């Protein structure tokens, strides 16, 4: 991925103003497409810098219980890929921050990888996170993304050796998504010295901006990450808040993080 993508540019520009950006995550169609729209609006108003829009899939193997359930409920409520793409198009046109798709490979495979990537491009989606698609399995995808100058984001984990990090980085664009611990989304992470060492290792193995996710959910977590990463990712926690306190509570939560 030699060229700098629009996504990376946008991130680097924002980083001029803020030391740590905030990326949030929603599942399209959960609890409904109207709610998705409203949550995005609230998040953007509250100051979120970029967002992952997850297209629901029936077998989200890398997701924990919260996102898993959101996927299932969205599908039960009638979410389809086409509807997800349409709402994404509307979101992208209405709100002026970078958006990425997060979904599983079968969604792309079934849609047609090239067609899916073209559609991203035409919608204005700037990158994709496909957690069950290692570069070795995703040559078509990588080529299509590169052709359209979109950002394929790959994941670093505490289990990833240095050479594999470099390999992943070479196949990525936009930023690197670094997971703070083992396990699925939505579980506790201890923000510790070990984590600092790990993040330093991530930094050493990529020149791309570094996003850190899995378990970020408070002002303290954000403070901890400041200086060690470029983007803090808040995933399950916002969905948990929608679930527990309703769509309207999201704004306050996000504001508490960026305050």
């Amino acid at each position: 991925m030699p060229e700098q993508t629009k996504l990376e540019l946008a991130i680097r520009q924002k980083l001029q103003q803020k030391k740590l950006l905030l990326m949030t995550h929603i599942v399209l169609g959960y609890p409904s497409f109207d709610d998705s729209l409203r949550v995005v609006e609230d998040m953007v108003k509250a100051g979120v810098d970029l967002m992952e829009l997850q297209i629901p899939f029936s077998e989200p193997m890398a997701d924990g219980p919260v996102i898993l359930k959101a996927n299932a409920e969205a599908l039960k409520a009638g979410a389809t890929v086409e509807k997800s793409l349409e709402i994404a198009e509307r979101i992208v046109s209405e709100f002026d921050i970078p958006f990425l798709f997060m979904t599983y490979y079968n969604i792309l495979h079934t849609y047609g990888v090239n067609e899916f990537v073209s559609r991203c491009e035409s919608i204005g989606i700037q990158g994709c996170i496909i957690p069950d698609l290692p570069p070795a399995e995703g040559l078509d995808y990588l080529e299509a993304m590169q052709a359209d100058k979109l950002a394929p984001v790959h994941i670093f984990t505490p289990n990833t050796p240095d050479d594999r990090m470099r390999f992943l980085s070479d196949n990525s664009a936009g930023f690197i998504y670094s997971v703070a611990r083992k396990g699925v989304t939505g579980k506790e992470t201890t923000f510790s010295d070990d984590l600092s060492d790990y993040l330093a290792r991530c930094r050493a193995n990529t020149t791309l901006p570094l996003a850190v996710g899995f378990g970020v959910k408070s002002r303290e977590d954000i403070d901890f990450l400041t200086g060690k990463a470029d983007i803090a990712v808040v995933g399950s926690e916002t969905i948990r808040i929608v679930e527990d306190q309703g769509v309207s509570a999201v704004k306050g939560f996000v504001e508490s993080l960026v305050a």
Partner: protein
Amino acid sequence: MRNSGYFSQFGGAFIPEILVSTFDELESAYLEAKDDDSFWKEYLELMSTYSCRATPITRLDNLSEQLGGASIYAKREDLNHTGAHKANNVMGQGLLTKRMGKTRVIAETGAGQHGVATATMAAKFGFDCTIYMGAHDVARQRPNVFWMEQMGATVVAVKDGSQTLKDAINEAFRDWVTNMDDTHYVLGTACGPHPFPEMVSWFQSIIGTEARQQMLDQTGKLPSRVYACVGGGSNAMGIFSGFIDDKEVELVGVEAGGRGRGVGGHAARLAYDDATIGVAQGYKTYFLQDKDGQMQDTHSVSAGLDYVGVSPILSHYHETRQVRFEAATDDEVVEAMQRTVRHEGLIPALESSHAFAQAYREAPQMSPDENILINMSGRADKDIFTVADAVDDPKWRDFIITKAAEYQMGQNDKKQGNGHA
């Protein structure tokens, strides 16, 4: 860039990044074991002392005569310890787990057969063990859950998705991505990311290797056709592997025809036209999915065949036409089971009965000097709740109702502080 484990376009390893090094480790351990003759020797030794390998082949004297046509033989995987071919895979992966120095195993299970086998292996090897099982299946298959718990396994009821096998697989992966350091995931069939399809088939090849030799010894020639039921595909891969290079042997995989064609009513990925190629649960194969790629509900009278995907190696054999795929409906299967019980004293699992049903359909058209071989992948006596329902036995229902009344009385007794005599 590694890109391995493909059989034509099927297979691969579509895994979360966090498992990449775990799969690398597993693949190395598997390849080393495969290269190490002493490993297979140890495996054979274990299977012949802990289970009863070589399992025999049995001629179905009465049904061969009644049906006319080919002589029918069954490979008796039902005689394995824990009652099915699942033991072969599980014991092999147990040895591999020990070799990798891991101390905990996890597994998915649908009917419970693979769960019981894994819990058994864990008890034998001294591993901690957690079994993931759809909440629906936990409710239906209490006997198997009971034995798993007696073996010391923790059985987790998975309440996500359709609460059946595929959800249990997802959940097992979620455990694994957290605990890969000390944990091996004992996948139960020839599916999932590379190297599972190949590795599980390797362990199950013990069936085919034995069966080929036994047919030669007992009948002086190879069978004309070999039948196996196909859930994930492990028992089929196991027996087919013995004959795949024998051009004169036709291999027949029999899937769950359920209530017949049409998505949702069956689990036939290759025999019917309802499945399409997709990627889920870490591998690429034919899946019963909708136009968006969302997995669909499946149905079969046999929990062990009730699965959305199928071994990528079998999808490959489907394309190369090395295996012919057929489906047997629930009704045909129950009839075949009852006939086998009644006339041969053998109790094939409902899964295995799919293979019997197809063999019974074809045998009469064949010549009397041909032989056919059915893989009897397991026995049904542990699935009595399912079988009694399948044959709709009123005495069984009465028995359960009476037993329940006793328990309810007993609970009252206990509340009143009385023991039972």
